[in-house]
Each structure stands twice: as structure tokens, then as C-alpha cells.
């Protein structure tokens, strides 16, 4: 069965870049969300065994999503994908339950490394 994964970013191009960086052999069913509220809806609908989450978004940002997931038992592996390279941002999302932080622009090498590290692929 394909693994349901969710790509969350307000930029259509950023979502495309990320989807293109996923390992081609990875058997996944990809859903997309443009903001945190859509992300949480998709998560509740069981579409996010793995979530790639941008931080800066309208309506509800990535921190807001992490906070909500934490209240709801965090039944998803969240990989934060952000251009914010301040160490504080990384520490903060990891402390909020994200398993990893990937810096934008993403590359297939970066994504594969993280997925392998956590035994996702």
C-alpha cells in the first residue's frame, strides 16, 4: 500500500520542487496543502503519515501546525522544510515534535538522507 504523504507550502513552485526531490522509487500517495489549516484537515483525514512542512505560510504557519499536531498526539512524521537557517528556528521545530529540518532549496540528496536516517525509506 502506498504511504500517504502531505506536502505543505503556500508556494506552488516550492511544492513542485519538493515533490520532484522525492525518491522516485518511494511508493507514496501525495497530497498537497497551501496553508496550515488545510494541512491539519488533510492530517485528520489520514493523508499525512509523513508531512513536509513549510514554516512561513498564511492563515496558519508551520509552528501553528506543529502545535496543533502535538495536542492531537502527533501521529505523523513531520519534516520541516524552510529557508529560515537560524539555529533557533531548527531547535524550536525539533522541540515541537518535528523529526528533522531540511533547508531550502531542497535537493533529492538532502531529502533522501533524511528519509534514510529515519528509516522511512
Amino acid at each position, binding site marked *: 500500500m502506498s504511504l500517504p504523504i502531505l506536502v505543505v507550502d503556500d*508556494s*506552488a*513552485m*516550492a511544492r*513542485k*520542487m519538493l515533490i*520532484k526531490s522525492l525518491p522516485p522509487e518511494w511508493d507514496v500517495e501525495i497530497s498537497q496543502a497551501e496553508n496550515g489549516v488545510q494541512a491539519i484537515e488533510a492530517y485528520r483525514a489520514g493523508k499525512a503519515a509523513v508531512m513536509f512542512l513549510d514554516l*512561513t505560510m*498564511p492563515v496558519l504557519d508551520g509552528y501553528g501546525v506543529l502545535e496543533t499536531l502535538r495536542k492531537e498526539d502527533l501521529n505523523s512524521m513531520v519534516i520541516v522544510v*524552510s*529557508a*529560515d*537557517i*537560524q539555529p*533557533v*528556528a531548527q531547535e524550536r521545530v525539533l522541540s515541537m515534535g518535528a523529526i528533522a529540518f531540511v*533547508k*531550502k*532549496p531542497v535537493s533529492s540528496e538532502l531529502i533522501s538522507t533524511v528519509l534514510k536516517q529515519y528509516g522511512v525509506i
Partner: protein
Amino acid sequence: MSLAALSNDQRDALQELTNIAMGQAGASLATLLDEFVDLSVPRIRVVELVDLPPVLAELVGKTNLVSAVRQSFQGYLRGEAIIIFGEPGCQALADLMGFEGELGESGENELLLDVANVLSGACLGGMMEQIRNFTETKGPAELSFSMPSVMARQVMAEQLIDPQKVQWSHALLLEVNFTIKNRDFIAHLTMLMPEEGIEKIRGILDEFLAAF
């Protein structure tokens, strides 16, 4: 002649490129200010220079006073970056830098120059870096910058740029939002360029869009 506005896809791509570039600016500012900096680019648009004064006035508020720094660039793209700060932003920066009471004009100018330099360098430099990484563009995507200088202190936004006195025909406007220590402030980056500069950027964006 008038230039077509950026398409939605082109704007989305430029916004994402700029956001990535701004990640570097945020990190540099965080070091400069010793505070966590939340930084985003919510709005981008291209306007003809004749339309710039009223657009700027609308963006920063018609009755608000602004200060601005200018810095020219040349190489892969040529033009002039103008970084505009509203007065509350200047004061917030001074507070964050830990200046007690009156900073004095020279101190404030220095602060504006530092922050403007970080923003324009990160924005344009970051864009060039991504152009080099992603596209098969002819010729090296390098830029050199002049020293920044303060062009205006506490003037009305509408009076900041006189289209008659500027050699460039178009402006690429980026609004940059910062949040530092729960204080929000906004800077506007205005890149003045000739029409071929805007067309060059449009070509790069189309290459990006085709690649993904």
C-alpha cells in the same frame, strides 16, 4: 511602452526564490541584532517608474514618513536597489540594537545602512546564487554592489523618488515583513531596473517553472 505584469506562476516562483534568499538575510540580521528574526516576503509586483510614487505611497501609507537607502548594482543585472523604512521601523531597530534614548542622526544612518545592506545583498545575492544553481544561463550570474548611501530621511513616500530624475524605466517591488521580539515592522525593497532587466528576470522565472 508598457510591460506585461508577471503571471501568477512567475510571481509565485519569484516569491519562493526571494523567500529562500531572505532566509540568509534573516540569519544575518539575527546575528546583527542578536535576536530571532522572523522574515517573510508577502507581496511582489512590477510597476512602471511613472506609477511608482503613488504605489509607494499606498504601500507605506500616504501620510507616513519614510527613510530610504540606495545602492546600485551591476553585472548580470544592473539597476538600483532602494530600501525604504517607515519611521516606526527605524525606531524599533534602534531599540533592538540596544541604543538608549536618542541615537543621533549619524547613529541612525549607520543602522539603516547596515540593515539595508543585509537586505539588498541577501535578496539580490541569493537570487543570483539560485540562478547559478538551477538554470543553464549564459554567462556568470554575478553582481557587484556600490556602497549604500542614505538618500532620504523622514520624507513623504510619494516624494521619495522623482521618476523624471531616474534613468530606470521599471521597478520590481518586494515587501519584506519582519517580526523581532513580537514587534512587527516592514521594509520595502524597490529594485529599479531597465526594461531588459525585468525581461531577463521573467526569462529566468520561466526557466525555473519549466524545470519543475
